[in-house]
């Protein structure tokens, strides 16, 4: 039950009501818009739900990987997305040093992509907030950093890379979250992993990329991986076995992005 009474008091009003609405028509469903900054949730939102469902030992999932050097802008961008997800985990674990390490890696990857000083400034703020143990500010700063990176890519007419940031962040987020649930399965925690529309949206976005990006070996492999996990993340009630399967697939996809998978 939403604690609307508190909110009502805060706003000095009781103008709340229970809603009654007619179902949407097929035309209305078809007309629904998608705005990435609203339609696709942040890692912070994902992990907040995980927190409520299972109170995970986040410290066990903190990992800051220095990826092997790569000249591929696609790989660098995907990794940058994964780092944002790692940042959220470090914040949930309240591990200031790991947050700073993630900030350093984000900075290094942003430099490789020639992103602007504004992104560099965000990375600096991450360090400052980590020093102050200001976890709420850090959550906001990570989201702002991700948005700043996308805005900068847009300004550089490199907007094909924007999709890859979201893709990397989702893959790593799902890898971590499925690992959390696989480690201590509960049906409630497994419910959080149900995200078919997000995966469908990411596949749509990859399919809309220019041909040379879409056919990039790494991007194509990640798209295939998304298509393979779609049935699993469409399940309303994932079993423990299905969660383990999902985690194995997401971990493999993450390794492909990092370039540490055998054969990648």
């Amino acid at each position, binding site marked *: 039950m939403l604690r609307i009474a508190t*909110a009502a008091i*805060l*706003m000095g009003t009781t103008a709340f009501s*229970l809603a009654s609405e007619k179902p949407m028509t097929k035309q209305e469903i078809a007309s629904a818009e*998608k705005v990435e900054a*609203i339609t696709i949730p942040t890692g912070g939102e994902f992990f907040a739900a995980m927190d409520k469902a299972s109170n995970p030992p986040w410290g066990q999932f903190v990992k800051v990987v220095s990826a092997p050097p790569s000249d591929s802008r696609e790989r660098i961008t995907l990794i940058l997305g994964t780092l944002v997800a790692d940042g959220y985990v470090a914040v949930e674990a309240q591990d200031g040093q790991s947050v700073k390490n993630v900030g350093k890696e984000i900075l290094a990857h942003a430099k490789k992509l020639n992103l602007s000083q504004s992104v560099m400034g965000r990375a600096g703020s991450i360090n400052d907030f980590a020093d102050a143990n200001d976890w709420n500010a850090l959550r906001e700063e990570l989201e702002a950093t991700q948005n700043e990176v996308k805005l900068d890519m847009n300004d550089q007419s490199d907007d094909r890379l924007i999709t890859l940031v979201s893709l990397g962040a989702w893959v790593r987020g799902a890898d971590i979250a499925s690992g959390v649930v696989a480690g201590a399965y509960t049906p409630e925690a497994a419910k*959080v992993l149900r995200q078919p*529309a997000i995966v469908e949206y990411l596949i749509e976005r990859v399919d809309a990329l220019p041909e040379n990006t879409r056919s990039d070996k790494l991007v194509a492999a990640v798209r295939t991986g998304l298509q393979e996990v779609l049935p699993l993340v469409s399940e309303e009630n994932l079993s423990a076995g299905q969660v383990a399967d999902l985690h194995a697939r997401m971990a493999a996809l993450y390794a492909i992005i990092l370039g540490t998978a055998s054969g990648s």
Partner: protein
Amino acid sequence: MKITLFAGLIFATLATAQEPAATPDDVGTRSKVLELAGAFSNDGYRIRDGFWTGDIEKGRPRFLEVNLFAGNEYWFCAAAAQSARKIAVSLFSADGKPADFQTYHDGPVAAAGAEPEISGKYFVKLELLEGDKSPFCLLYTYK
């Protein structure tokens, strides 16, 4: 203090978005929606750093696809210009049926709150109930 923060957020967003120059109505709707969201943030909700903007007119509701997580609590907050005398926000499940949600109305400002039991796709409906065509701004908060 809060007003200063909101103003900072508004102008930072408008400055970085590099969209066509914002009208006073655009700034006003963002200011109003941030003010409403701020009330929720005082109650532990986090404000998502993203906006949905456009125009609404009577008889032509707008719909937005969102993805929610079971267990989280959400408030979708919207504001329109004064010419929109009354707006409403509502929430529907992936198959278009009304979700279990609660509403808040205050003229050109409204919100819908929900705590979904199933993770996945939902639709937010924004409707002008009374008044003239107006720009709007919608954002959401969660905890």
